[in-house]
Structures are given as C-alpha cells and as structure tokens.
C-alpha cells in the first residue's frame, strides 16, 4: 500500500556532513508499511521549478511514533530546496515505494556494503535483519565529508573506510570486503552506492557465488510505475527487458541487472 501524505510534519532536520542532511518527518502510514530498501518520493518545492518529486531512500522508521527518517545530500535544485525546509513545516511525500531488500531471512551471515548516501537504506536494513541474523556493515566514501556523522547510532557492527583515510581505514569498501571474505563465510551481500561500487560488488559476489542484492538509481517522474520512465536494461524471466527502478526495484538481484 502506497500513501500520499501532502502535509507530513518535519520534526527534525539536521546537517550531518558536508551538504548532507538528516530529516525526520511524521507519516505514520508510511512508517508502518515501509520495509528496508523502499523509498519516499518528495516534493521539494511548492513551485513548478523543480517540477518533479525526488526519490530518497528510507533511512529508518519509528513505527511507534510514526516517524520516517531520510538522509540526503544536496546535489542540485531539488535537494537545495529541501535543505531549506524548517522543523514545524510540512513536506508533501509519497511512500513507501518500490521493492526493498529481501529482509525476510533468518540465521544468515550478511554483509551490508554501502558507499556515500547509499549507506542510508542499509542502516534501516541492518537494524531490521540484525535481530535474526549476523550483520556486518562496510561503509565507505571518498573522504569523511561524505560520511554522515551520526552513523554511530546504528545498532549493528560496521567498519568505515575512506579513500583518503580521513575517517576509518584508508581504502575502498572492496578492500574491506575482500578481507572479510577471507575471515568468514558470507551468505548474502546487500549493497547500495555509486554504480562503479555496485559493479565491483557484482564481480566479487559472482566469483564467490554469494547472492547479491543491489539498490539502483534512475531519474524518476511518477515513482509508482505509471510513466515507464525510470527504465534500465535488465532481465525478466531470463529475457532482456527494460525494468523499472521505481516499481521492479530499486532493489534488484544481481541476476536481474545487465551489468
């Protein structure tokens, strides 16, 4: 079930990095129906420019209080407008949208590999699946500026790395991943981040024959499968097809993606 909440009250809005913000809004329907990997579709301005909503992953929910948290980075007009919203004002939000991660698992040894803002949905995923599984996060980015500073609040173990070593280990998430693969048997990898990182994940996971789920991005209009605009080339029932990130994903199995 998808909900349109035209007046979701903003209860918290904080800067948590260089151009990175954490925003929490009240939307009980979305909080209650969401699952990790799903996203919300946010109207960033009341005007007609920018016209379209912007998709942002759900970073966490508080079902009891009816709250939804997102992390976002200012990269253009929409997110710039969003960053101006004040606590006490309202947001126009649709959610929870899309197909999330397969979180219905038990007793598995799972790695969450996130890059930059791709860490956001993995926090939510980790907090849900860590109840019944062994979960470890490997999160990275170019430098410490792109790593949200409130990460420490997560309720599962994780390691950080940056390319310049400004926070965590110096190196790429793939380096840490390889290390981890030497140490223990991994049952599944869930990943979200820039395309090159995902491609690297795919290479490693297929070599190791570990099931992989990745969260993809595409420019979106409707966010609900109406416009067929967010297409990317993948496979459905073994045949090449234009999958829709907003509806068939944003989370896909390795095998669904044409790498």
């Amino acid at each position, binding site marked *: *079930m*998808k*909900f*349109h909440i*035209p007046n979701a009250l903003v209860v918290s809005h904080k800067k948590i990095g260089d151009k990175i913000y954490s925003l929490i809004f009240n939307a009980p329907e979305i909080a209650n129906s969401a699952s990790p990997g799903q996203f919300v579709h946010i*109207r960033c301005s009341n005007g*007609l*420019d*920018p*016209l*379209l*909503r912007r998709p942002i992953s759900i970073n966490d929910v508080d079902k009891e209080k009816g709250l939804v948290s997102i992390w976002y980075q200012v990269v253009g007009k929409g997110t710039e407008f969003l960053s101006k919203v004040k606590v006490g004002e309202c947001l*126009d939000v*649709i959610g929870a949208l899309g197909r999330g991660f397969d979180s219905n698992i038990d007793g598995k040894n799972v790695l969450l590999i996130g890059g930059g803002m791709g860490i956001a949905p993995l926090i939510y995923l980790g907090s849900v699946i860590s109840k019944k599984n062994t979960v470890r996060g490997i999160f990275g980015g170019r430098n410490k500026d792109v790593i949200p500073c409130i990460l420490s609040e997560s309720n599962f173990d994780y390691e950080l790395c940056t390319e310049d070593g400004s926070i965590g280990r110096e190196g790429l998430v793939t380096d840490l991943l390889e290390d981890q693969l030497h140490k223990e048997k991994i049952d599944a990898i869930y990943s979200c981040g820039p395309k090159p990182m995902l491609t690297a994940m795919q290479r490693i996971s297929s070599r190791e024959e570990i099931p992989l789920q990745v969260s993809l991005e*595409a*420019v*979106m*209009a*409707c*966010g*609900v*499968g*109406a*416009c*067929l*605009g*967010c*297409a*990317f*080339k993948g496979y459905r029932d073994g045949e090449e*097809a*234009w999958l829709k990130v907003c509806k068939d994903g944003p989370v896909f199995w390795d095998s669904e993606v044409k790498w």
Partner: protein
Amino acid sequence: MKEVKLSVDVAGIQMKNPVMTASGTFGFGEVYEDFFSNELLGAMVVKGVTLKARKGNSAPRLVETPAGLINSIGLENPGVKVVLQELLPSLKKYDVPVIVNISGNVVEEYGELAGLLSSSSVVKGLEVNISCPNVKEGGMAFGSSPEMAAKVIREVKKSTNLPVIAKLSPNVTNVVEIALAVEEAGADAISLINTLLGMVIDIKRKKPVLGNIMGGLSGPAVRPVAVRMVWQVAQRVKVPVIGMGGISTAEDALQFIMAGATAVAIGTGQFVNPCCCVDVIKGLEDFCRKNGIKNINDLRGVAWNE
C-alpha cells in the same frame, strides 16, 4: 446552491465529470488505485497500445526541464493481445468509461488495432495517437499532414463503431487544418495536445541527455501552447475537444474549458500530485458553486465572447 452538474458527453462517451487521465501517465488503471478510487474519474485513458509488444526506447527516458518534463518512453507496451486479455478485463469493475490509445507503424495497423479493441466490452472509445514524437515509424509523422491524419482516421472509422478520438500533435504549422481534416474524415472528437518535440543537452557529457536524443515536452511549461491550440480548434470544429497539456489545478482545467474544451486530461500533473485528477474534479465543482454555475457545460468556450 444545489448540486453542480459536472457530467459531460464526449462523442457519446458519458462521463460523470470532465476529467480524464492522459494516455501514458496512468498505466492501465492499476497504478493510482492506492491514492484514489478510479470510480471518481470522468474517464480512464490507458497507455498507448500497439499491435505487437514494444520494448520502448533506451535509457535515460526522462529529463526534467523548467516547469516541464521530457519523456522518450517510445510506446513501451505488451501489445494489444496482452492488453485485451490481461489488462483491460480488470477495469470492467469500474463504472467509468475506458478509452484505449492506439498507435500504428503503418496506416493498416491502426485499423487492425481498432478492430481488435472493438471486440472488448470494456472499451468505450479509441484515442488515435497520430502524434507520438518518440517512435521512428509512424507516430508524429501521421499527425503532421492533413492528408495522412485523415487517412488514419478513415481507416480506424472503417474498423470500429466506437467513438474515435483523434489525438493531434502540437508540432505543426497549422493545427486547425489538421483538426478540420480529421473531423472531415469522421473523427468523433479531438484530443490536444500531445507533447512538443524537445531535447536537453548534458553539457558535462557533451551529449543529449536522453537515450533517444529527442523526446516529448509536457507539463506546465507547454500549457500556454495547449490552451492556444484548443482555443483555435474548438472554434472551428463541431466535434468535442479534449484539452490537455500542463494541467495541474482546477484553474488550469478551467482555462481549457473556457477556451472551448468539453473535457480535459491530466498527465504530468499526476506525477507531481498523485491525487491531481480528483483534486481538479473537486476544484471544478467548488468553482462552479462559488460562481453560481449550475452546469459545467455552460463554461465551455465562454472566453470566446467579445
């Protein structure tokens, strides 16, 4: 004030209000069910259907522009057979007319599609897309000359008893000429506008943004062009006109109605506000009530008066 009469008759298609979905922005009626009941709509116009399944154009297919959206979907659809067997039957449950938008590569395909779709009891009308800017063969080319446009409409009329709506392209020198040609050829109504051909260049990559290079511009940016074309056409044809292009509020819809449209359709506006159609319907009713208008049909073309 008592009830406001919002119902309209578009070429025999009875609509409880003048608001329909624009083809290609509503899937096959399933996508917005979580947000509002389809039952509330004046009519449902479903995604463009072709004879064979089409995979659509390569990605990226969308780019936002100032107050607008360019799409180059390329008529992705599962083909008329699957549409008839799997998608349309589920729409039977709504007491709302279903209009199917059709596209052919060649003139004959339009006739074939019309024939096939006429067999369905769900379908209450055909919208003939001779204005798609996103396909190589046919598409907009059919809507660019009065002769070709008329030919397609005649072919469709031969193959169906359903009301036939010609959907015109705004990318023409003289839209009235095309409108008169399709009316003469038997079109029972006219839809306008389809999208304006446009493109955006990604200056970082030094390439067009869209995989298909060009696409169709829709949304508020094109509204002034759409209102102008409805104004021009509605004064010259006898058949009803369905106005669309950039509608996102009741005020926008009223511009089209006052310019002469019998009904309106909403596309891009739905992407921004998933409840756009129902908000517009409510807004039309409010406007009529506040202004003492008993029947929405009384507003049609009022702006023509000196």
